[in-house]
């Protein structure tokens, strides 16, 4: 288990392209169904290695508001930070409290990640 990570969500090019192909398309599911993590955190998450090379690595991401099962990808992120593209998986992790602004906390949430 990696210590508490900071989750940020946001747009990506692939998510922007895929949403025109339909939200039930495979492209959209793939474009929004992953979590990115730094190489160092990914290594810490599975000290024994990730098994078969090239196989999709699945993890469960959990926040105080919900959880999502996602494909793990290595991304150019600082240690301690994870990124999930905006979409149904990100929504499951974000709370609906807006602190009187209308805007949920879509960036900067504490999250845990465990391998599946």
């Amino acid at each position: 288990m990696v210590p508490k990570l900071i989750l940020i969500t946001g747009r990506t090019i692939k998510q922007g392209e895929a949403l025109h192909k339909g939200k039930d398309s495979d492209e959209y599911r793939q474009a929004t169904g992953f979590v990115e993590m730094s190489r160092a955190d990914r290594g810490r998450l599975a000290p024994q290695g990730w098994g078969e090379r090239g196989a999709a690595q699945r993890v469960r991401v959990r926040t105080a508001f919900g959880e999502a099962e996602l494909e793990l990808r290595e991304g150019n992120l600082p240690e301690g930070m994870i990124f999930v593209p905006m979409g149904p998986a990100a929504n499951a992790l974000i709370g609906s409290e807006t602190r009187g602004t209308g805007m949920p906390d879509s960036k900067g949430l504490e999250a845990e990640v465990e391998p599946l």
Partner: protein
Amino acid sequence: MRIENVVCPFCGCLCDDIVVEVEDNRVTAVKKTCSSGRSLFLNAHTGAAHPTVDGKEVAWSEAMDTAARLLADSASPLIYGLSSTASEAQRKAIALADLLGASIDSTSSVCHGPTTIGIQSQGEPTCTLGEVKHRADLLIFWGCNPAEAHIRHFARYSVSARGKLTPQGRKDRTVVVVDVRPTRRSRNADIFLQLRPGCDYEVLTALRALLKGETLDVTEVGGVGVAQLADLVERMKSCRFGVIFFGMGVTQTGGKYLNITELLALVAELNDYTRFTTMAMRGHGNVAGADCTLTWQTGYPFAINFARGYPQYNPGEFTAVDMLARQEADAALIIASDPVAHFPRLAAQWLSQIPTIVLDPEANLTAREARVVLPTAIYGVSAVGTAYRMDNVPLPLKKVVDSPQPTDEQVLDWMIERVKA
């Protein structure tokens, strides 16, 4: 047929130099767009689509009757979306909200709503993207990622655009990226300041203090060395025309509108030294238009309620996420938006429990859960209309193919007639 100078309606850049090839009423090729714009034009539906009620295809008159009845019978209806439709339709949606005593909110509330709240307390220095292209020699991208979300911004308006006073494009500009992580843009920036998440407010305050000539008794603020911040302040003071473009990295983190208030105060104070301005990187094609149209119709930009017969404004109360998560809306009309795909789960769940009517060209996730689905034409592809660029410049959207579908404006007109009857 080749159609030139088409406006792409996808994002707040509203690139107006697109070339579209059309054969047999289908878009066969698109030139100059980014990949998102290309996907929008090439995947645009041009065939007929029927409205549905409870998943069954019905005639337009039946769908409209059902939709109007659901809204008229509701005690607290919510009208939401608006950012991917034309301002002509936004105006009709406001008229309908007024008639119903409904709440009306746009997708601004989950993107630059905090920006608007900040502007209301601090004021906003403005400029057009044309001024940026021709004059700006210092560009700061703070908490935004144009390489993923506003792909042609650099080439058309900012980093590498060649203008009258910036004839060498990129060489005539200093580019600074402020973000919590490295991005495609940060690798090509002259300066990259990597903040700790949630520290935007502290760093902006430190910049204001340094600008006032204060000495800071710390070595770093929010993960950035004070020497780097002092260097940035000197560059800001000595540039000819500076701009801070900012995005969700500032509005969606803790502090929200307070971050924006601090950013706007810094920019205002920089105008004691030079011309300095700022601009929100608006996401959807006409989200800026939603703010403008709501403001000139009601006096307020988002989070509006008509229950008392006049417009009241209150973010946190009449904003869509709050109204849905607190189960205060008992029916919803969603126009050109997909909150089931983009709202926090609690809010999205309530939306699937109340009667929902969707106006959208796409069968999106919200439409899948809706009682009534009204498929409409696509503004900028199969319907003309007006959209506002991120600098609040209105542009006329062209129609490149014919659509058998009515526009959002027509459908809202029919709905208004039925609610009145």
